[in-house]
Structure formats: C-alpha cells, structure tokens
C-alpha cells in the first residue's frame, strides 16, 4: 500500500501549497518557510518535492508564476493562485475532510 500513501502525501503537498498561496502570492522559498512555520516545523518541504509540485501545478493552470523582487531585493519567481487553483483547493479540502472523517470512523470503531 506504499503507492496510495504516496498519493495522499503528494495530494497533501498540493493542498498545502495551494492553501499557502491563497493567503498571498509567494516565491518558492517563501512557501516552504510558511508551511514550516505554520506546522511548527512538522512539515519541511524540500526543494526536490517543492519545485516539481510548483511546475506541475503551473502546468495544470492552478497557479501562475511571474518574476518579481523579493523582500531582500532578489529576483524571484512569485506564484499566485488562479481561479482554477482556488476551485481546486476547495475540492482538495473537501476530499481531505472526507478522508479524515472516514479514517476517524475506522479508528473509532470498537
């Protein structure tokens, strides 16, 4: 069942990124740091999974990248949520809630 667990994790990462971007447009490092910060360092998003996810989602049309200046005057690629991405976030959230409640039912069964 390794495969399905990976899928859940992958899906989770997409959801976390989309959620993060729904608050404000952000560059890669910003997203990574934000997730770390919110989850108290439980989730550390490595560039090896962050960038593939960003590029994939950009290709899907959920997020949109454009070049801008970072807070330290560095040139950086900022990502922003598209309407399609917002819709996707809604779906993901629903799916997640459903998953959690289902797993909850299993765990609470006696």
């Amino acid at each position, binding site marked *: 069942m390794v495969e399905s667990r990976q899928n859940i994790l992958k899906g989770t990462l997409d959801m976390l990124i989309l959620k993060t971007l729904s608050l404000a447009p952000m560059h890669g*490092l910003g997203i990574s740091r934000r997730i770390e910060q919110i989850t108290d360092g439980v989730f550390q998003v*490595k560039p*090896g999974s962050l960038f*593939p996810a960003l590029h994939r989602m950009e*290709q899907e049309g959920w997020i949109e990248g454009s070049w801008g200046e970072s807070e*330290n005057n*560095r040139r*950086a*690629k900022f990502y922003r949520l598209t309407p399609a991405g917002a819709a996707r976030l809604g779906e993901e959230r629903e799916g997640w809630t459903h998953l959690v409640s289902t797993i909850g039912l299993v765990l609470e069964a006696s």
Partner: protein
Amino acid sequence: MPILPLIKGTFKALTRSDELEREMDEELESYLSMVVDEKVQGGMSADDARREALMELGGTEQVKTEVRQSRHGATMDSFVWDLRHALRLMLKTPGFTAVVVLTLALGIGANTALFSTVNAALIRDIPFDEPHRLVAGEKTTDGVPNGSVSRLDYFDLRDAATSFEGLAAYVPHRVTVTGEAAPEVVGLMFATWNLFSVLRVDPVAGRGFLPEDELEGGSSVLISHALWQRRFGGAPGAIGRTVFVDGEPRTVIGVVPAGFRFMNDTDLWVPVERGDFFIDRQRDSHSLRLVGRLAPGATLAQARSEADAISQRLELQYPDSNSGKGFFLDDLQRQMVGDARSSLMLLMATTAMVLLIACGNVAGLLLARSQGRLPEMAMRTALGAPRKRLIRQLMTESILMTLVAGIAGVGLAVLFQRLLLQLLPLGKPGLPEPTLDSTVLIFTVVVSVLAGLAVGVVPAFRATLRQPWEQLKTTSRVSGGRRSTRMRSLLVVTQVAVSVVLLIGSGLLIRTMSQLTAVDLGFDPERLLAGTVGIRGSVYPTPDERSAFFAALMERIEALPGVERASGISKLPIASPSMDWLVWPEGQPKPGYGEGLYALTRFAMPGYFETMGIPILEGRGIEDIDTPDAGRVVVISEAVAEGLFPGRDPIGRHLNLDWHDPYEVVGVVANAQLDGVRADFPEAVYMSSAQAGATSMWLTVRTESDPLLVADPIRDILREMDADVVFSRPRSMTTIVENDLSGLHTVTTALGLLAGIALLLTAIGLYGVLAYHVNQRIGEFGIRIAIGASAGKLLTLVVDRGLRMVGAGLVLGVTLSLFGTRLVQDLLFETDPLDPLTYAAAVAFLGAVGLAACVLPAWRAMHVNPVEVLRKE
C-alpha cells in the same frame, strides 16, 4: 481540469524546452541565494552558508530532473532529446549512415513497390459499385472450368436463376474502325444490353444500352472516353454520329466514363444481337463469358448451387450437347486476378526475405558499432541513466535510420514500379492500378519501424547488458567482442540459409524457363513477322473478291526485298488460341458430347505450312487450286490422322466438322503448338481460307533478317491497295512466343534479381563478420606468426570459420527449401520442385561466393606483421 493551459504547457515543454530550462536554472539560483541570505543573516559566513544551502538543496541536477519528469510531456520531451541525439549521431557518421540507410532503403523500396502491386490486385476492391456482389461465370466440362458458355445455356441460366439481380454476357473481339478519322484497329466487346447496369456504370454522355438495342438490325454502339477524345475531340455532338466498325455503320449512343476497363482493353461496345444465326441455335457453340450481380442478400454459394441445379436440368433436357457440362461461378475479382495471385505471393515472400537479409546485415553493423559504444553506455549507466532509458535511446537511433530508409525506399519503389512491375502479369484489365496510396504508405511505415526494431533490439540489449563497473575496468576489446561475434555469426548463418532458399527457388524457375524454350513449337518462330489485316465484307462481298485481295497482297509482299515467303491464317499459333470443333470420319454417326475428337480449327492461305516451317508429312498443304468453286478440302495434323484413321492412309478420305458438310483430307502436317507454349493440344484441322471467304487474317511473313523491317513496307502496300485497311500490331513471332511466357519471364527475372541481391548482401555480411573477427584476433595472429605458425595455418583458421557459418546456413537453407519450393510449384513446367541439379547448383554457387568472401579477411590474417602487432600490444 482546464485543457488549454495543459496543452499550452505540454506544447511549451516540447517546443520551448531551452527556455524552460533557463527559467528553471534561474529559479533555483534565486532560491539558493535567498537561503544563503537567510543563513548569512543568522550569522554564518558567506562561504559556509552557500555550502550548507547547496547541501540542503540536495543537488541542483536531481531537483531539475525531478521537475522535468513531473512536467506533462516529459516522455515526449526525452523522446525529442533522443531524436536529436540520434540525428546528430547519424550526421556524425555519414558513411555508416549511408550504408545502413541504402541497404534498408533497397529492401524497403522493393517491398513497398511489390506491396503496392499486391495491394492493387489482392487487397483493394475492383472499381465497381458493391464489387463483392459481382460474380464471373464460365462453362465447366466434367467439373473443370474451361471457357465460354453457349448462348442458349446463358439464356436458360439468366431466366431461371433467382440469385442474380442481373446476369450479363460478353465476348471480346478486335475490329477496324473507319470514318471521320484515320482507320485504326481497336478492341470491341459484344455485350448483352445489361452489362453496364450489372456493373452499375453510367455513360458520361448520351445513354446506355436498352433491351431494344439487342434487336436484330440495331446498330447502336457505346464508345470509350479515349476513343471519343481521339476521334471526336470529346465533342458532345459525337452522340448520334456514325462510326464504321469493320465497315458496318453504327450509331454512337453514348460514351463510357474515362478509365472504365473491364476484362479487355476495349474502345467499342456493341450489343449481342438476338439475331437468328445458325451458331446461336447450337447449344454446343460456346462463345460468351458471364458476369452477374448477386441479388441483395444472396451469396455466391447460393448462386452456385442454383446454377448447379439448372445445369443438371439442362443435362437431362439436352443430353447431346450438355452431358457433363456445368456452370462455374466465382468472385469476379478473384477471376480477374487469376494466375497472377501465385506469382505475386511468391514475389512478395521473396522480397520480404531480401529485406530480412538486409536487416541481418544492418543488425550486424549495429552490433559491431554497439561494441564500440560500450564505454559510452557504461559511463551513462554509472551516471545514473536507467537501462530502460538507454535501450530506448538506442532503439530511437535504429528506428530513425530505418524510417529515413523508408522514405528513401518510397522513392525507390516508384522507380521499381516503373522499371519492372509494369511487366508483371497483373490479371485482367479493370483491376485497380498499383499506386502508392495510404495503405501502401502505412505498410511502409510499419515495415520500417519493424525493421528498426528488428535491427536495433539485439544491439541495444547487448550494449546495455553489462554492469558498468565490469565494463569500465576491462579493456573491453577481446572479451566483449566475442559474444557479439557469435551473434553476428548467427545472423550470417540465417542469411546464408535464406539466400539458399531464394537461389533454389529462382533456379527452379530458370529450369522451367529453359524447359519451356526447349519446347518444340512445331514451327520456326525465327525471322517471322505476324500481324492482322481485316477487309470489309461489304466492300469485298464475294469469297472470290476476298481471296483475290489477299492473294494480291501476298504477291506484293513476297516481291518486297528481304521477304522469303508470305501467307496467312485465321488464327496465329500461340497469339490466338482456342476455337475447337468436333471432327469425325464421314459415314460414322456424330459422336456424343465429350466422346469424339476435338480439333483446333484454322483457315489457311496457300503456302502457310511452308512459311511457318510446319512439315507436310503426307499429301499436300492448302494451295491456290483450293478456290471457292473447288471441292472443300482439309489438311489435318498428325494427331488427328492418328486419332481418326489409325493405321490407315487418311488422304482422300472425308471428315465431318461439327455442322459443316464433309471435307476431303488432302494432306497431313506435323503437330504444332497452336494453343500456347505450355498447351497440350496437337489436334488441328486446316481449311482453305479462300473457300471460307475469310475477311480477317493473320499475315505470316518469313524474312531473311529482322522481320520488323518489312512491317512498314507492308503498311505502304496496304495503303495503296485499300486506304481503310490497317496492318494491325505487327510483331515478330519470337516476341509473341515470349509474350506467352511473359508473366513467367518477368517473375523469373525479378526472382533472379532478388536472389542476386540476397546473395550479394549475404556475401557482404559474411565478409563483414570475418573481417571483424580477424581484426579482433589480430594480436593473437601476430603472436602465432611470431612463434612460427605458417601462413597456411592462419588461412585455415579464418576460412574454416567462414565455411562453418556457410555450411550451417546451407544445411538450414536446403532443409527449408524442401518445404518452401511448394510455393513455386504452380509456376513450374516439367521441373521437379526437388530437382537435385538445381539444389546442387545453388549450394555450389553459394559455397563459392562464401569462399570468396573469406578470401580477403584470410589474406589479411596471413599478412599480419607480428612486429607491428606486438609493438601495439
């Protein structure tokens, strides 16, 4: 999911991969510098910060690979990369590429050309509406199909059968057309009025036949589109105009669509008249071919059983004429293709085998090259390229090469088609013309890709087989090479085997050809010109006038310089076969159907036998004294004399010929092949053409040198005698005899050519393997020479190896041939498919070629300079 960005992204990934790569580099760089910024702010030195940031990143390359693979079109992307790499490689080694592409292009081209022919004859539909409902019909005798149906039998079948929507009959003929333009001889088809409605072809101008066109005295004619253009300039006013067909005026009622062809090359269609000719009252006078369209829902099997029932009824009703007689119905297309099927299948199989041999050579070349690329592959494996990826790349390389070869092959196919395939027997006119249509092109692409897989798969797996460390630590040359040499030897063995099969196959056909040319024709075809001349019955109404015309013509032709003798005959041997009548001695009852003796019936002019070189054995030939007023005479062939008058002198006796009054036998001549080179029909009777009042004759002119030289002078004479008479299609008798064998001739030539190519490719393959082998063992040979091995010993080493491959291939090939020659059996004539001489010759020939291929590598081995070799080591 939004489709547009997805497509855009994929497209971008494919087309703008450079830009994406650059952007990704930038993005990662900015990420890195921001991480460094963070760490420096946290109090780290710039250098330490950068090092740590890089470690956290975990290798830019890995990240980039991950990103690349996560994109849509990633597979396509790497495919594009493979393609570019393969193209670069092809251009980097132009010599290698040229050899591979040319070899395969020849093979693929030949296959494409032949397949286009097979496609036209056997796969594509004949160009008629709902062609699968069309059925061809002929007569059978004792169940064996043997030609035309009698008119009365046709009427009975047509009226009684319910399986047909329509059943038409036709018979081809040749006529002279005059009036309004220069006279010409064209094909004419007598057809029942419904021929075109059965075929569902409508005229492009005017109207088609109606039932009343068949009535006696009708004079309608349909003309071909070509004749319309030629004689009337395509004018619409041609409808209603008159053409003279063998002098008879006929009214043009319509024009058949351009390109319409059915069974014969025909320019005129004339309704079969429902006239009350004596010949039509005879149930045993057979002249018509049938074509029918099955009724909706009816099957060929139903039609067949219905026709069988009808013919059984006719047998009971008319036992004299119909005993043992039946109808044979078959799919029209199958009938049109006829014997061409077996030739085509044979050639297709042969061409496929040649491609196989070509693939063998290319696979050998790729194997040798992949040996040289082992270090490259090992290095890439060590750097983390998965084996699957490398195999895919190598396969891309070989398939790209075969696809390029395929494109070149299509060009070659056009050439092959023009050069050779036009000569192939393609069945009856009306079958689709071979063209390079989409089916053929798909075939070519499939064959190319298959060839690419076939030649690429072994080298690709071999090249990536070894563990990289193993590869990198050895010097590779000797140990790695051996396995690939074994593989290549196996390829050569297969090639030799296939070549033997082809050689034996073409050897058998060559034997057949020589048997056929050795057939005693019974006449001398050398220096003999033949062509037809037809005069109008209306201009020369009496037999006397007709024979006077031909006699005068002969006299003038014989006066031409270079002419030895000239005469004429109603039907030329070989060129115009059939027409056999029942013959029996006078005073005896007429034999029942299928019991008596049938003889080919011919009408000859004086001097015919002398001109043809047919020996007169007894009595005399047809002479000037056999005028219309004199007694009716007949000259019989030896076979008729033996059949009717065994042990008795036939001269002076009388013969009955079907419904004619008795003829007096005045001579016996030697048997001759009248019905075709392969025919077995020596019974013939010759009557006087003057007495028959013939209007159409084949001229036979014996010349001193090239017979074609007198064709134009004869035309001039005819023009002077009667401007409306045409000397049609003059050809030399040797050409006519060759034409009779032409299908076989072309097939034999093509097969011989293919076998030659196969042999050449095999020799090259064998040479390549041996040369490579010697090259690899050059060090060993040097040492052997240094320690005293004689040159002879080295020669034996190399030749022995070569001959072992050839030997194994020969054994395999001969074994295959024992079964494979069944394929050519249909085409053979008095040749045993297991003819030992052919087998021995093929084996000896291939053995000799194999030995020759060993010579150069062996010579090299013998002349290895030990000092040089050892210095290199």
